[in-house]
C-alpha cells in the first residue's frame, strides 16, 4: 500500500521560521568550504534560489555563512540549490569576461529517483513511495557506495534524502571535485548499466561477446541476487501478471525455453514469481553443464538480475560540473520533509515517512522553548529537535573533511 506522502506545502511563515531557527548554515558552510575560513570553495560558489511565484534566481554567491543566511531569510525561498565553484564570484558574472567565468570545481553528484523504477515496481507509481519501494533505493545505495569507495577510491561521500522519492550522493574528495566534464562522463559510463529507451526490452548490455561480467559488476551481482530474491520475486512479485512474465521472457535468448515457459505459465497463470524463476532455472539445467546454450542462459539470468536491481541513476545530473542540485536540509515543497543526510550503513532501516517535517520540528521547538520570544534567535536551535541526529551526522562528515584539508595543506608546506 502506498501512503500518500504529500502533505500540505509548508507556509511561508513556517519556512521563514525554519531558516531563521533551524537550518544548519554553519554545517553546510563547512561542508562546502572544507575549512573554517571562507575560501573560493564557498565565496565563488553558485547558489540558486526558487522563490514562491515561480521566480528562479541564479548566480548568487556569498562571502560567509552569515551572508548566506541573511539572504535566505530575506528571500525566504521554497528551496535553494548548489552549483559549482566558478573562476570568479558568480554574483560578478555580468561584469567579468565570459571566458573568465567558467565552472572549475564541483562535488561529484548522483541522483537516484524512484520514477526510474516505475517499469519494475508493482506497489506504487509516479510520485508515490512506500516502504517496499524504498528497498530499491536502499539496494542502489549499497551498491553505489561500495563501488565508488572500492573502485574509485573516494572517501568523502554524503548521501542525502531528496525529501520525497529519491536520494542524492555528494562526493567531496578533492580529486572528485576537480574532475572535468569528460572525466565525469567516463565515470558515469562506468557505473551505468541500465540503458536503452522505453522501447528496448534488454537494458543490460555489459558483456563483450560471451565474456564473464566485468569485475565491478560481478562484485555487485552477489548482493543483488539476494535483493532479487527478496524484492523482485517475493515482495514485488514482478512476474505475476502476464505483462510481467512476458517482459521476463523477452530477456531469454533461447526460443525453446521461451516457448516451454510461455506454455506452462499460460496454463498456470497463478504460479508465483518465485515458481516462475525456478521454472526457468529448471529449463536451464536441461542443458548439460559446459554447453554453450547453458552458458548463454546463465549469463542471461545474471543480466536479468542486474536489469531488475542495479542502481538506475539519472546520468545527466552527474555529467556536468555546472549542474545545480538541491542543498541538503532544504524542505521538499510537496512533502514538507527535510532533506536529511542518510547513513548508508543503516540505509535498510531508513524510513522516509519518519523524516521530520518543518511543522513537526517547529512544534517541537515551541514545546521546549515556550514563549522564549523571537528576540533571542538561537543559531543552533536544531539541537533541541529531532533534527539533531542529522545535523550531527553532517558535522561528523565535515570534521573528517576538514581534517583531510589540514593534512594535505601540511603535506604541501613541507
Amino acid at each position, binding site marked *: 500500500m502506498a501512503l500518500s506522502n504529500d502533505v500540505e506545502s509548508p507556509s511561508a511563515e513556517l519556512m521563514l521560521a525554519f531558516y531563521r531557527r533551524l537550518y544548519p548554515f554553519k554545517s553546510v558552510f563547512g561542508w562546502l568550504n572544507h575549512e573554517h575560513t571562507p575560501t573560493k570553495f564557498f565565496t565563488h560558489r553558485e547558489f540558486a534560489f526558487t522563490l514562491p511565484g515561480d521566480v528562479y534566481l541564479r548566480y548568487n554567491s556569498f562571502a560567509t555563512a552569515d551572508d548566506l543566511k541573511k539572504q535566505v531569510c530575506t528571500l525566504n525561498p521554497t528551496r535553494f540549490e548548489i552549483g559549482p565553484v566558478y573562476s570568479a564570484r558568480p554574483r560578478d558574472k555580468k561584469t567579468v569576461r565570459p571566458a573568465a567565468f567558467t565552472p572549475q570545481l564541483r562535488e561529484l553528484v548522483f541522483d537516484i529517483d524512484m520514477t526510474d523504477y516505475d517499469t519494475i515496481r508493482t506497489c506504487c507509481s509516479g510520485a508515490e513511495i512506500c516502504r517496499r519501494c524504498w528497498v530499491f533505493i536502499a539496494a542502489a545505495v549499497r551498491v553505489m557506495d561500495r563501488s565508488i569507495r572500492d573502485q574509485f577510491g573516494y572517501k568523502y561521500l554524503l548521501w542525502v534524502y531528496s525529501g520525497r522519492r529519491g536520494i542524492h550522493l555528494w562526493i567531496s574528495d578533492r580529486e572528485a571535485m576537480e574532475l572535468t566534464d569528460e572525466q565525469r562522463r567516463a565515470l558515469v559510463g562506468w557505473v551505468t548499466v541500465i540503458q536503452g529507451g*522505453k522501447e528496448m526490452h534488454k537494458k543490460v548490455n555489459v558483456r563483450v561477446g560471451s565474456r564473464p561480467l566485468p569485475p565491478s559488476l560481478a562484485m555487485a551481482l552477489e548482493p543483488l541476487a539476494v535483493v532479487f530474491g527478496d524484492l523482485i520475486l517475493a515482495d514485488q512479485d514482478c512476474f505475476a501478471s502476464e505483462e510481467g512474465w512476458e517482459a521476463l521472457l523477452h530477456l531469454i535468448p533461447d526460443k525453446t525455453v521461451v516457448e516451454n515457459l510461455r506454455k506452462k505459465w499460460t496454463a498456470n497463470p497463478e504460479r508465483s514469481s518465485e515458481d516462475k524463476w525456478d521454472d526457468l532455472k529448471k529449463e536451464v539445467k536441461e542443458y548439460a553443464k559446459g554447453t554453450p546454450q547453458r552458458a548463454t542462459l546463465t549469463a542471461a539470468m545474471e543480466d536479468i538480475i542486474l536489469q531488475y536491481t542495479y542502481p538506475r541513476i539519472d546520468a545527466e545530473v552527474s555529467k556536468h560540473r555546472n549542474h545545480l542540485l538541491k542543498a541538503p536540509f532544504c524542505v521538499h515543497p510537496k512533502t514538507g520533509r527535510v532533506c536529511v543526510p542518510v547513513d548508508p550503513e543503516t540505509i535498510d532501516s531508513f524510513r522516509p515517512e519518519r523524516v521530520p517535517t518543518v511543522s513537526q520540528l517547529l512544534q517541537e521547538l515551541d514545546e521546549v522553548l515556550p514563549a522564549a520570544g523571537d528576540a533571542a534567535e538561537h543559531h543552533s536551535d536544531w539541537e533541541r529537535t529531532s533534527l539533531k541526529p542529522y545535523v550531527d551526522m553532517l558535522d561528523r562528515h565535515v570534521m573528517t573533511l576538514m581534517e583531510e584539508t589540514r593534512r594535505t595543506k601540511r603535506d604541501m608546506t613541507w
Partner: protein
Amino acid sequence: MALHSQIPHRLNFYDRPPLDDITIEEFETCALDRLRVLAEIESSFARNRSYDELKTVTLEQCKKYLPLNSSTAIAVDRDAERRKDHVGHFVLRLAFCRSEELRRRFVKAETSLFRIRYDSDDRVERDAFLNSRDFDWIPVTDEERLEYRAELSAASTSKDAVPEKERYYKVKWTRVPDLIEKRKVFLKGGLAFVPAREQSSIVFQEFQTHLERDLEMTAKALPRLDEDTRIVPILNNLSQGFLAGVSSEWSSSPAGNGNEITADMVDELSRKHFPACMRNLHDSLRRDRHLKHFGRLQYGLFLKVLGLSIDEAILFWRRSFSNIQDDKFNKEYRYNIRHSYGLEGKRANYPARSCQQILMSDQPGASDSHGCPYRHFAPDNLQSALLSMYSSQGLTSADLAEVMNTVKAGHYHVACTRVFEITHASQGVKKGEGVGGGESVTHPNQYAARSRELERGKDEGFKTEADGDVVMQIS
C-alpha cells in the same frame, strides 16, 4: 643546422615551439597544408567513417600534403618534413586557440592525426619515442597480478588474454577516461590496471591533455601577438576556412518563401513527411501529453528548422502539454523554447540535431522517447512501430525483412533511407535513389524537406544542403 637533433622522432608531442626564423610564406603554406589534412579528418567524423577508413583516407591526404617519414627512410628530406610538421602545428595552434569550440575541434583532429601516425609507426621507432618520455605509469608487480588474477582476467575484453603473461601498468583512472567509460580495465582505489595492449590509450590521452593545456596558455598569451599585422589576417583566414568547410547546420530555407508552418499543420505533416524518430516523438507527445527534456530538444529544434515560428512553437507546445497548468508551462518550458530559438541566454542559433547526433549522443534512458527508433527500439517494437507509422504510405510487412537486416548490421540511417524510398515509391522514388541523387538520410530535416518537396512535385529545384562535407559533430 642539425634540426633532426631537435626532432628526433617521427611522433611528436610538440613540447617546444620552433625557434628559428620562419618566412611568412612558410608560415602560411605549412599551416594550409596541415589544415587540408585536419579538414579531411573532421569530415570523416561527419561521414561516420570507421577508424580504418579514416586511417586510409588520412594517410592518403598526408602523403599529398604533409609527408612524414620514419627515421630510416631514405631519399627524402626528413628534416624538412619534420620541420614542416612542427611549424604547421604551431601556426594552427595560434589560429585555433581563440575560442573554446575551435580549440575542441582542433584537439580532436590533432589527436586523431597523432593516433593514426602512432598506429602506422615503425615498432622500434615507436618504442624509442615512448622511452624518450616519462608517462608516469607504474608497472604492476607480480604479487599484484596474482592477487587480482581473477579480476584482471574478467576485465579483459579478449578471451585468450592470460593475465599472468600480460604486462600491466597502473595509472590514475582520470588519465584513461575512454577505457573507464567502456569498462575495459580493472579499477581499484582510483587506479586503472591498463594492459600493455591498451597502453596507447594512455599515450593518446596524454597527447590530448597536453595539447588542451598548451592551447589555453597560448590563448592567454595571444593578445600580445595580435599586434603583428602580417600574421593576424592569415590566422583569421585559417580559422574561418576550418569553420566554413564544415558548418554543422542543416539550415531551413529562408523565411518568406511559403515554407512557414503553423502549429495546426504539425499533425498532418508528421503523418505524411516525418522520419521515424520524429513520428515517434510526435506520437509520444500526443499520447503522454508530455516529452522529457531530450525529446523536447530533439523535436523542438526539428520543428524550428521545419519552419515553425517562435509564436507558433509556443502555441504548439502549450496545446500539446494539455495536462500542465499555465504557470508551470510559463515557468518551466517557455524559456527553454525561446532559448532554442536563440531568444534567451546565449542567443545562439541552435541547429537541429543530425542523425549522427541523434544516434550517438544522449542515449535515451529507461523512460525517454528521443533517439532513433532504428537504433534504440527492440527489433519487434521497431517492426510494429514502422508498420503502424507507414503502412498507409505503402510499407508492408514484406518490406520489413530487408529493413531489419540493415538495422541488424548497424546501418540505421540506411534503413531509414530504405523506408523513405518505399514510402515515396508512389511519387516515383526508386530503390537506391535515397533522398535524391542516391544520397542517404543524414538529417531528419533533410528527410522531411525532401518528402515535402516530392509532394509539391518540384523535383528539380531541390538542392541538398546536408551533403557529406557538412555535419561536423560538436559533442
